[in-house]
């Protein structure tokens, strides 16, 4: 009597466990088959607290002189930028012409020097350069220390 019952329990348990495992596996497969959720881009979702009405600025309306001035300024800007762009393109064209002329003369001189000159320079790229700032660096300046804690949320699919 003591031996028979435990045996039955074990068998039944084993079967139940196996059935449970299979059910779990089927559920997992179903979940995996469903399309992966898209990772939300935090920059495109404005938090709701910024669309409350008390946040809207109250400023006086634009006078017609002001809007006239703005339109004229935009037109002047358009012309300024066009001239700037043309000047840049002209400078680049002059640069390229000058280089082509130099290479032509070099070819007349010696073919081997010419071939060496038109070879690709492997050491040129990657080219790094720090851009200019508004004021030059202050010699001997001790920048205040601080710790930067990164709180960006990382999503996994």
């Amino acid at each position: 009597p003591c031996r028979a019952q435990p045996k039955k329990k074990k068998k039944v348990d084993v079967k139940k466990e196996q059935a449970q495992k299979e059910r779990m596996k089927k559920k997992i497969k179903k979940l995996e088959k469903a399309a992966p959720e898209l990772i939300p881009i935090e920059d495109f979702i404005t938090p709701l607290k910024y669309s409350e009405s008390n946040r809207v600025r109250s400023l006086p309306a634009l006078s017609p002189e002001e809007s006239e001035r703005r339109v004229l300024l935009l037109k002047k800007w358009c012309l300024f930028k066009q001239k700037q762009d043309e000047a840049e393109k002209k400078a680049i064209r002059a640069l390229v012409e000058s280089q082509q002329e130099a290479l032509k003369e070099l070819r007349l001189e010696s073919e081997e020097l010419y071939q060496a000159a038109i070879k690709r320079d492997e050491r040129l790229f990657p080219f790094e350069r720090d851009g200019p700032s508004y004021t030059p660096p202050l010699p001997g300046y001790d920048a205040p220390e601080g710790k930067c804690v990164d709180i960006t949320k990382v999503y996994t699919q």
Partner: protein
Amino acid sequence: SAAARRPWRLFGAMCLLRLPRITQPLEKEEEEMAALMEQIELEKSHYSDHEIRKLEEEEQLKRRKESLYDEDEASGKTVIMAQDLEEKWEQKFLRFKAAPRITDADKSNDRKSLNRKLDSNLMLLVKQKIGNQELWLLPQVEWQPGETLRNTAERAMATFLGDHIQAKILGNAPYGIYKYKFPRAIRTEDNVGAKVFFFKAFLQSSDLSQTKLKADHLWVTKKELGDYLKSEYLKKVNRFLLD
């Protein structure tokens, strides 16, 4: 080298540029446009947390002044107001003194210094003896067989500035050429004139105190080149210099 030896002597010259360290001043249109853009951005924006805090505190102050029995509300609450914070930040900013954009070298017009004209490119000019004349030129040396022209230009730089100079040369190809014929007295069948090939490089190391310059040298901007270079030479050099 199998063909007949050409009568031109070859030189490699290096145009070494020190890149600008500060931004150029804005043009009038750029300033007006920047002001307009700021105004439009302000108009289209909403209040930030800091501004809402400021408005609420102003309201509180007004209410406190109008009704005189508000002492219980005011007692345990905010001691620091947003306005005070702003004033504190303003004070801290005023205490910081940035380096001046116009340096001492600018004021004294010391053309040998690299600290001048921080918002434009500076080029190296050296005084060299060509024939029997001492001329201001971009550093150049004669090409020797067995080296490429880029090596010649590097050698020119090393001759005048020493070996420890760090410069990024922009490619193997020359940027410009200046050719001239020797004066009739020296000209022969085999030696008609010279061709000077210009290469461009950016100066990487900002500290040149280690180098001992062997000849007279100057660092000048593109506009000042006219003071030193001859007109034909200047024309060719200006073609490959972007300002």
